[in-house]
């Protein structure tokens, strides 16, 4: 039997536990579920907005400590769960996808695909359902990085096709549409068509996060995606040096113009740790990502070091977060996943009233 007084005390105690990102207590946020009191044994679920929550353990400990301190409580059992909340949209594209994350850069060669792949895997390692779309039509590299041999996708009903699957991720790439090693030679307007296919004709199923690896620049693919897909947020990848920042700056401004929320900046190839002296060498200069993030008042989501194993992972098809989860680069990617997921939850909580991307009005005369 549950003692109503005790239940009240427990709820009061949990009301003092704040979610540091959403700035509200976990009771008002509706996170506390299935409270069960059996004598002195207390059990409840804390349902977060993402399994990738960076402060999960901190919240668990706080809940345990605060409830344990109540008189009459002998044992506390906190079960941390998560249900990813969708970014509001009801567009006909990607109906089962809750959040779409675009990974972009102004400049090529900064490691967008490496970041996208490792970010997607890091998100899925937390238990989320994740898809990865390789939107770099001219230079698709995701299949190589994911170790997926080139083969035609399985075709379903009504012209739909199924993504390839590896490491628990669903993967779509233009590389699967051609023979191994053959270039796709297309003029600009064709690119939009392929992207539309990826959005409308792929059986993605239910996904918590769809990570889209964009090609460099601010062209056809970026425009089609921002016009046709309800993107929840964008991550801009840069390397530290000025030459890269000029282009990354334009990437950020592109998303600002089309009103896609910026989740933050990732600085890739930030530094190299020498195995002889353990010193951080800032090969491409220092602090570029931070400067860019500060200029736009958006978060710097991570600084990923240069480590040989990162490229090795890309070439061998076993991304570093899987092959070497303890490496500093993997740690950076896992932190990145947590911050991206947290930032999406924050944006959803603050989105307020806005006309949605699905708005349509028929004029009556």
């Amino acid at each position: 039997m549950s003692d109503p007084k005790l239940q009240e005390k427990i709820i009061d105690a949990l009301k003092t536990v704040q979610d540091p990102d959403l700035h509200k207590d976990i009771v008002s946020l509706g996170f506390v579920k299935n409270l069960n009191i059996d004598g002195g044994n207390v059990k409840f679920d804390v349902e977060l907005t993402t399994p990738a929550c960076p402060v999960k353990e901190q919240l668990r400990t706080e809940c345990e400590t605060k409830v344990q301190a109540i008189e009459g409580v002998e044992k506390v059992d906190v079960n941390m769960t998560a249900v990813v909340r969708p970014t509001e949209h009801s567009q006909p594209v990607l109906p089962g996808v809750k959040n779409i994350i675009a990974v972009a850069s102004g400049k090529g060669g900064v490691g967008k695909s490496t970041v996208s792949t490792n970010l997607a895997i890091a998100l899925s390692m937390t238990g989320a359902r994740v898809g990865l779309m390789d939107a770099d039509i001219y230079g698709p590299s995701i299949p190589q990085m994911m170790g997926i041999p080139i083969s035609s996708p399985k075709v379903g009903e009504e012209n739909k096709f199924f993504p390839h699957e590896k490491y628990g991720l669903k993967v779509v790439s233009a590389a699967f549409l051609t023979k191994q090693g053959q270039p796709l030679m297309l003029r600009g307007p064709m690119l939009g068509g392929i992207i539309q296919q990826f959005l409308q004709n792929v059986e993605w199923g239910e996904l918590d996060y769809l990570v889209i690896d964009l090609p460099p620049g601010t062209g056809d693919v970026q425009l089609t995606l921002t016009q046709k897909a309800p993107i929840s947020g964008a991550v801009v990848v840069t390397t530290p040096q000025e030459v890269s920042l000029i282009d990354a700056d334009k990437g950020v401004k592109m998303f600002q113009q089309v009103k896609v929320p910026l989740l933050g900046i990732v600085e890739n190839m930030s530094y190299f740790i020498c195995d002889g002296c353990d010193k951080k060498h800032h090969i491409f200069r220092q602090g570029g990502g931070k400067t860019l993030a500060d200029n736009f008042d958006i978060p710097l989501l991570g600084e990923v070091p240069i480590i040989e194993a990162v490229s090795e992972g890309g070439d061998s098809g076993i991304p570093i977060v899987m092959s070497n989860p303890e490496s500093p680069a993997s740690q950076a990617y896992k932190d990145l996943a947590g911050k991206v997921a947290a930032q999406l939850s924050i944006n959803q909580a603050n989105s307020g009233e806005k006309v949605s991307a699905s708005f349509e009005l028929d004029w009556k005369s």
Partner: protein
Amino acid sequence: MTPPAPKNIKQVDESTLGISWNDGHDSVYSVKNLRESCPCANCIDEWSGEKLIAPGSIPNEIRPRNLKAVGLYAIQFDWSDGHNTGFYTHELLRQLCECEVCKTKKMEN
């Protein structure tokens, strides 16, 4: 600071569109003026910015048939004359506002 975004878009009467913004501002538009302000490359020269719609060529009876969102940043109008290539960004719509306050401001400038 984030620029204002439309909160609600509605038909006010046969020839008037209304937009309420998330910063509290309420805009009204004559749909004919909106058609004349179409920002697309057929209506405004891409390089010179010169207006290509001949004065008086838009009939008073022009109406939108349908409006829809373009991503998160613009509204596309499908007009009764068959024209539909203009994306009206939120900024542009805000500039075109014809409410009394905005009209007076424009006169002063």
